[in-house]
């Protein structure tokens, strides 16, 4: 995973990589990494939980656009099956609306 990101980035393609195991990604040295402590096979969350998946993707795209140096890593705090995803998504939309208004 991290190895592929390094090859693509060296070829001039900007990458953002999701990880379940932050330790490995950080040791390997990935250009932009997001980690989440979910079980294997569930990096973007639960099946058909569209709001949850969209929120995680948004974190990835934000990092893609905002990281300014190689090795930027974000560890997301979300807990497996213990978050109110609809509420989180709503809060984020309010935050965005406020930052647009300012």
């Amino acid at each position, binding site marked *: 995973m991290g190895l*592929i*990101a390094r090859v693509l*980035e060296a*070829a001039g*393609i900007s990458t*953002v990589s999701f990880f379940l195991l932050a330790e*490995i990604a950080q040791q390997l*040295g990935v250009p932009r990494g997001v980690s989440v402590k979910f079980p*294997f096979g569930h990096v973007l969350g639960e099946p058909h939980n569209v709001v949850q*998946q969209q929120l995680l993707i948004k974190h990835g795209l934000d990092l893609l656009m905002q990281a300014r140096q190689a090795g930027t890593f974000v560890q997301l705090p979300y807990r497996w099956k213990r978050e109110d995803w609809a509420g989180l998504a709503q809060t984020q939309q309010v935050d965005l609306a406020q930052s647009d208004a300012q």
Partner: protein
Amino acid sequence: MRRAFNQLGAWFYRVMPGLGQRWAKRFQVQTVEAHIPWAAVRGTLAQQRISLITTGGVHLRSDSAFDMHDPHGDPSFRLIPASAKPNDLMITHDYYDHRDADQDVNIVLPISHFQQLAAQGTIQHLGPCYSFMGHITDEHIDTLIKQTAPTVARNLRAAGITAAVLTPA
């Protein structure tokens, strides 16, 4: 027999997530390099031509499966067209429990979401996507770094791709 053993292992990691964290601590990373490659993003998100890459062993139903018999993994890749629908896809990978991903491939390859982002104009374009199989070890790591991953990089460049989103199994 080996496949059944691997599938049992994958189940254990699923029911005890802490095992994965312990495994990570013992993991010997092959390439620890101080230098991290960097390609700065140019333009806005709406100008990005994005491809998705997964190591979840996803492939078109019509395509050949990944090799599950080589203990060092399969370093090859499969092309997944940007227009692929979840029902066109399946997963061949014994090293993780993919029953949930079989129900909704978007948890390992978020293709429906990125099709929507492209249709909305949030991103400019969704390009060709690629899948590898994780769990590649020993001599196959070299094949991945020197042959198959560079081939995908060239294909993405040829398709005018500016950025890639990578998701593991």
